[in-house]
Each structure stands twice: as structure tokens, then as C-alpha cells.
């Protein structure tokens, strides 16, 4: 028993040392519409009015091992992450290119200022489409629905069609949070007065910790967590369910990276997220974590507030598919800030591009219409994704819970054996009892 906690401490210590190898704390600096003020007022105002949002967050460390995040709504909500190591440089933003002013192209709109740092790794996550489908069989299975539903049962919206509100951005420099919110009429049926909204609420992390809201995911200083919420819309169909089409793009300076993978880790422990026993890591380069990004989530979404076990429903993901340059999803990428960062290399062989659908719902959960609400939390980050471990409290509880009955059985067993032995050694009793028995049998015969 005594060896058990010691071992635990050892494991804990080794985990801690492992974490120390990664950057534990970063300084964050946030710019909204960065460099916009350097251009004439019309360009800046236009960017703000038409909802072309760009947020630049620089997460720097003392060793100049910096992460540069670019969050943008241009061409669809996208997150680009760049890791630089040698010098402390900033990104510069060419707004004429970003807004494709005077027929200029978005290529190369986002570059590093001098001195040029060494870009060790870059990757991006782009939300390309919002799928809505009429799940008449209540299967909550996107693959099944793709095969069995006809075209009229689908309502597929490109995220590039949405108008993102600059007023709802709510950039908070102290918590490093901001919201991409869209109330655009793409989602609203005619004659509908409801004020529905769709939003991505980002929270850039600067240290390690655990989120206080369900699903209470562990986070590290190398990541950004976000909530995706579809609230208050009247769905197109009575049995509507939603899904996101996501594209992840990865490029490292080193040799062509291996294929991406979506890993599902199962655990018996759901102490942080009651009722959820899995975590999913979409790794851009599973073999080499120093040139890999991750997209992490727990397969749970919530159909109303407050978030809880009763309001939880499932999140499923499809298999990864390659994004071909000629595909319709690829065309959507060409209008996003991805092209501004990746330039022509976006479509060369070194860059790995994969897409997947992430769908919300579980059979019999009452569909989206039940509460007109769906919320999902995920994280985008660099390096090794955080992994939950069983807490010491749980281990102590379990070992006490399991040790006790064993102890009882042993003590009880020993006691009854001793008692029996004493009885046996206490002399003539059995003979006596036998004689009574004999009398008894004789008489009844």
C-alpha cells in the first residue's frame, strides 16, 4: 500500500518535468485590424463595416520561441498559427491585399517584418461550410444521411456568405478573448424575426490550466480554445441537425510531413467532463510533435444552457479526406487568409490539406429544434496536445474503496478460522454433541 503513493509522486514528477520542456508561460499581445491604421481611412472603415475582421495575437516567450496567431473572418472563419524561433519579429498586414482592393490578390498579404525570422512550422484551421440536414430517420449519422437523404433534405451554407459583425467582437485584452459573431440573414428564413446568431468565441491561452466551464478541458500555453455556438435559429427542417466542414492545412520547413491523423483516446475517467470518456486529437504530424499542430475536442456538445450532463449530446467526426485543388472546398480556401500566409505553397505537394465533417447530435436528443441551441468547445494549438490524467483524489478514493473490502474479507476470514480452531481445540465438546445426536437418532428410530 505504501509503495503506491510513492509511485504516484514519481509519475507526477515525471509528468511535470515533461511539461517543463514545453513553454509553460507566454506573453500575449493582441491587435485587432493590425496595421489597418497605416492605410487610408476608407480601407480601414470598409474592413470594419463589411466584417473583414483580422485579430493578430503574438504569444511570445523569453527564448524567442514565439507563436503567431492570425484569426480572421475573411473568406470564412480561419485560424493560422506560425511558430518562429530565432528572432523576435512581428507579422505585418497588407490591407489592400487582404481586402483585394483594386483587383489585388490576397496572396502574400501577411508577411513577417524584418528581420525575417525562421518559420519552423505553420498550420491553419478553416471552417468552410455549415451543413444543415433533415435527419428524418433520427440517425444523427452524417455518413448515413449523405447516402440516404436527397438534395432537398440539405441546406449547405458556405461560411464565406456570412456577414461577421465588428460590433460584437468584444476584444478583451486582459483575458485575450474575442468573438466572431454573425447574425446574417444567410441563416434566417424569410418572414423570420428571431435574432439568431452563430459565433466562434476564442480564448487565447498564455499558461497551463483547466477551463472552468464544461467540458472543463485541460489547456496549455500553446493553444487557443474556442466555443462554437448556434443559437436561436429556426432551423430549415423539423429534424434539423448541424455539422461543420473543417479544413486543416499544415506545412513544415523540414521534410514533407507525414499524413494527419485523428486519434481517439478513451479513458475510464470522466471526473472533469461527466459522462464523456473520450478525447479526440486531430494531429497534423502525429510522428513529430515539434512540427505538428493539434485540433482537440471532446465528443460532447450542449443543447442548452447551463451546460450539464442533462443538456449534453454527442459530437461525431468523419474520416479525413484529402482536399483536392479542384474541389469546391479548395475554392473556398482561396479567399481566406490562408492564401495570405501560405501563398502559392498552399497548393504544392509539401503542404498537407485534409478535411473532415464534425456533426452534432445523438439519436433521440430531440434535434436542434428542441432548444434551438448547440454549443461545442474545441482547442487549436501547437505541439503535443494536453492529456488528462486521473486525479490523485480519485486514485486515493479508489484504492481505499478497493482496499477496504479486501481487508474486511481477510480479517473476517482470519477471525472465523481462529474461532473454528479454538472450538476444535477446546476439548470434548464435539464428542458430547455426538453423543446427544446418537441418543436422538436412537430414540426417533
Amino acid at each position: 500500500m505504501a509503495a503506491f503513493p510513492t509511485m504516484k509522486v514519481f509519475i507526477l514528477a515525471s509528468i511535470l518535468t515533461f511539461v517543463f520542456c514545453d513553454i509553460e508561460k507566454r506573453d500575449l499581445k493582441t491587435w485587432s485590424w493590425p496595421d489597418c491604421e497605416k492605410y487610408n481611412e476608407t480601407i480601414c472603415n470598409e474592413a470594419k463595416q463589411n466584417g473583414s475582421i483580422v485579430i493578430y495575437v503574438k504569444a511570445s516567450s523569453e527564448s524567442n520561441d514565439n507563436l503567431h496567431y492570425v484569426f480572421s473572418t475573411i473568406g470564412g472563419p480561419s485560424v493560422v498559427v506560425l511558430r518562429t524561433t530565432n528572432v523576435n519579429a512581428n507579422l505585418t498586414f497588407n490591407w489592400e491585399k487582404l481586402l483585394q482592393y483594386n483587383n489585388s490578390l490576397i496572396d502574400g498579404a501577411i508577411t513577417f517584418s524584418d528581420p525575417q525570422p525562421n518559420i519552423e512550422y505553420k498550420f491553419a484551421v478553416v471552417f468552410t461550410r455549415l451543413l444543415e440536414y433533415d435527419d428524418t430517420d433520427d440517425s444523427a449519422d452524417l455518413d448515413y444521411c449523405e447516402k440516404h437523404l436527397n438534395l432537398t433534405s440539405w441546406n449547405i451554407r458556405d461560411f464565406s456568405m456570412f456577414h461577421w459583425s465588428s460590433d460584437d467582437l468584444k476584444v478583451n485584452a486582459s483575458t485575450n478573448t474575442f468573438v466572431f459573431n454573425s447574425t446574417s440573414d444567410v441563416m434566417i428564413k424569410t418572414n423570420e424575426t428571431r435574432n439568431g446568431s452563430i459565433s466562434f468565441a476564442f480564448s487565447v491561452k498564455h499558461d497551463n490550466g483547466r477551463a472552468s466551464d464544461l467540458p472543463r478541458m485541460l489547456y496549455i500555453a500553446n493553444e487557443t480554445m474556442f466555443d462554437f455556438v448556434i443559437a436561436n435559429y429556426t432551423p430549415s427542417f423539423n429534424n434539423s441537425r448541424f455539422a461543420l466542414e473543417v479544413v486543416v492545412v499544415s506545412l513544415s520547413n523540414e521534410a514533407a510531413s507525414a499524413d494527419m491523423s485523428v486519434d481517439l483516446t478513451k479513458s475510464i475517467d470522466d471526473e472533469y467532463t461527466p459522462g464523456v470518456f473520450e478525447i479526440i486529437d486531430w494531429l497534423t504530424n502525429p510522428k513529430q510533435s515539434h512540427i505538428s499542430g493539434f485540433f482537440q475536442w471532446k465528443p460532447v456538445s450542449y443543447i442548452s444552457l447551463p451546460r450539464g450532463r442533462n443538456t449534453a449530446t454527442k459530437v461525431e467526426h468523419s474520416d479525413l479526406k484529402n482536399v483536392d485543388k479542384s474541389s469546391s472546398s479548395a475554392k473556398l480556401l482561396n479567399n481566406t487568409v490562408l492564401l495570405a500566409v501560405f501563398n502559392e505553397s498552399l497548393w504544392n505537394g509539401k503542404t498537407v490539406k485534409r478535411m473532415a465533417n464534425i456533426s452534432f447530435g445523438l439519436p433521440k436528443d430531440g434535434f436542434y429544434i428542441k432548444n434551438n441551441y448547440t454549443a461545442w468547445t474545441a482547442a487549436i494549438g501547437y505541439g503535443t496536445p494536453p492529456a488528462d490524467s486521473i486525479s490523485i483524489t480519485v486514485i486515493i478514493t479508489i484504492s481505499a474503496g478497493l482496499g477496504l473490502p479486501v481487508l474486511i474479507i481477510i480479517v473476517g476470514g482470519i477471525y472465523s478460522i481462529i474461532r473454528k480452531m479454538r472450538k476444535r481445540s477446546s476439548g470434548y465438546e464435539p464428542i458430547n454433541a455426538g453423543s446427544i445426536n446418537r441418543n436422538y437418532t436412537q430414540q426417533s428410530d
Partner: protein
Amino acid sequence: MASKSEPDEKTPLSQVVESNNDDSEEELQGCSGTAPCNPKSCLHRYFPVLVLICFLSFGSYFCYDNPAALQDTMIRELDISEGQFMAFYSFYSWPNVVLCMFGGYLIDRLFGVRLGAIIFGLFVTVGQVIFALGSLFNLYALMCVGRFVFGIGGESLAVAQNTYAVKWFQGKELNMVFGLQLSFSRVGSTVNMNVMQPLYNYIDQNIHGYKCLGIALFVGAGMCVFSLICAIVLSFFDKRADRVLKRKQISSEEMIKFRDILTFPLSTWLISIICVAYYVAVFPFIGLGLVFFEMKFGLTPTSANAVNSLVYIVSAVASPVFGFLIDKIGKNVFWVIIGIVVTLGCHMMLAFSFINPYVPMVIMGLSYSVLASALWPMVSLIIPGHQLGTAYGIMQAIQNLGLAVIALVAGIIVDQNGYLILEVFFMAWLCVALIAGVLLYLIDANKGGKLNLSAKARAIEKLKLDAEKSSN
């Protein structure tokens, strides 16, 4: 010790008591002479008596889960919230944390088991009628009153049922009878679950809305009337058997007083602790199991539901069988401990592994059956007949209290800390049950091991006891 009326091995056990009467036997004529109607015949014990005992609470088990079977319909047609719906169960269970103890006491002290069963059967019927009327006129408050009245009857009726079982089957097939009662309670609620919605849909063709619901509930009331009829018929047979078999009447000095409860032996309380600690580790878990099976084991809602109801289904089939075997083998305490340990193992499997949950849930169903059919009859070995109603009432009350409180606590734990901690919590309760089980064994062994006798030893014991009685 031995006397001349000591029976030999050839004398059937069931006739020991009867043959000891020196008074002239009553002549049984006509049908009464045939085996099924003759209280002296062992066939009579099975048919009609056992059948009647089993159907005694069929109506109450059928109606208890009427709301669950019609959950969506009720919420829609009565326009009530989920919370208001759950109140239908609260109004049943919370009063019974106390009331069924008095129910048992009243059976012992005032009514006797015969009148008691009829009165409580009447409560059940009236309660269901009020519930149905409330639905017919869409009066939510009246429906709650109905559930309350129904509850007063329901739990005490179960106590009466246990008392009847002991009265007719003690020293015979008592374990099996308790197992069979358990099966019937499951059959009652399963029939309800499968019948009510189709019945509602059928009535819905002509009458709609809450009126339709009311009529469907009146059909449930019909089941209660059926059970009430069983209670009346059973009381007739019981009275007749008392007369024919010249069963001993309880004298007024022997009548239980309330303070007698304090003199119940420690073993009774240990059995109660096992009862509550074991049941709270099984039923509140089933109540929260659906999401667990869906999320941890990736089952579809339909199969998660199937896994969740396995304990009920398995126990309905297995408990009479195990009861029968325990009747043959004896050693009740041993079986109780086995039941607890195996259930503990099942919970561990569910908590610490990803083994297909069909396996642990089937095993849990089996171990629950073993425990239930071995545990309840033990009380009748410790407590004299005239106090049995009270003893069963207390046990049921403690169990109700435990289930009501732990169901709430379990809900909070799972929301705050998840299923792993919840499972550990249930395991802790099973450990409490295990400690009580081991203590029960040790205390009982110190007193001569009456509870844990093998069936053979118990039969010999009984012969001796009867011989002693008749010689006095």
C-alpha cells in the same frame, strides 16, 4: 428434548403441525375435498394461494410505472414540466419513507394480514382512480393527491404480501416465493411499459388529449381492482386455512407493542443495512445508466436502454430459480455475501474497464436475484410471526429512505464529478453492505449459525422445534 410425537423421516414436513392436533378434524366436503381446495394439501399452497399472493400487488406494480410508460404523452397532454412529471414519483416515494413502517405495524397490531391486504389494496385502487380522474379533468393537483393515496397503499401492500408469503411458506419454499414475488413485480411493470402506450394510441382514435389519458389510466385502475379481488379471495382462503389447520391465534399479550421494535435483534438491523446499502448501489445506478452506456461504451440509445433494463429482465427470470435452489441448499448469509461481492465485481468491471456492458449487467442481474431471494426470507427466521409485518415495514421504510436520498445524491455526484466517482460511490455502499454481511455472519455464527444453516440442518432444527412445541 425428544418426545414421543417426534415424527420420523417419512412424515411430510408440511403436515407436522397439522397432525399434532388432538381435536377432531373438520370434514371437508365437495370441492373442498379435492387437492387444490384442501388447505392440508401442498397443491393448495401453490394453487390458488401462491398465485393469489403473486397477483396481490400486480395492480400496484402495474400502475406505479404508468407515468413512466406514458412520460412523453403525459408531459404533452397535461402540459406539465419535467419537474412536475417527476413529482408523480416523489408524491409516491417520499411519504413512504415513513408510512410503510406504520403500515407494517398496523398489519401486526390492528388489521391482521388479511384485512390489511384488503385495506391497502383499497388504497391502491382508490389512489389510481383519483389519479385517473385528475387526468380526465386535467387537474394536476388532484393527480398528485391520487399518487399520494396510491403510495400509502402500494408500499404497505408489499409488506402485507411478504407477511402472507411467510405465513404460508415459512420453512417450506420461502426463498423461492420471495423470488417469485420479485419476478411478478417486474412482470407487472414490464407489462405496463409495453401495454400503456399502445392502449393510449388505441383510445386516442376516438377520444383525444387528457381525457384519453384519463381513460387509459382507468384501465390501470382495473388492474388494481383485480388485485383487490385477489386480496379478498386470499383472505377467504387464509381464514379457512386458519380454521381447518387450527393455526395458532396471536393472543393479546403477544401482540406487538411499538417499543418491541427496540428489542429487535441486532441481526435484523444488519439485514436492513445490507438491504439499503445494496439496493442503493443497484437501482439509482440503473436510473442514471442510460447516458453512461451511451457515452462510455458507445451504444445506441436503443441498445443502451436494453442494457439498462437487463437487471430487471434477468432478475424476473432468475430469482424464482435461485430462490428454489437456496431453499434446497440453505446457507442464506453465504448467498447474501456472494451476491454483494459479485455485484461489487460488476461495478468494478463497469467502472474500470471497457468490457461490453452486457456482461456485467447480466451478472449483476443474477447476483441481485441471489441476494434478493436470500435476504428477505432471513427476517422471518429471526423475528416471530406476530412482529413480522412491522419488521418488513421497517426494512421497506429504510430501503425507501435510502433509495430516495441516494438517488438525489447520485444525481448530484454524477453532474459534479462524473461516472467514475459515481461508481466508486456505489462501490463504497457495496462495501458497507459487505461489512454488514460479514458482521451478520459472525454474529449469527456466535449464536449458533441459525441464519446460515444448510437446508438439511434447518429441516432437522424445525423438526426439533415443532416437537418441543407439541410436547408443551
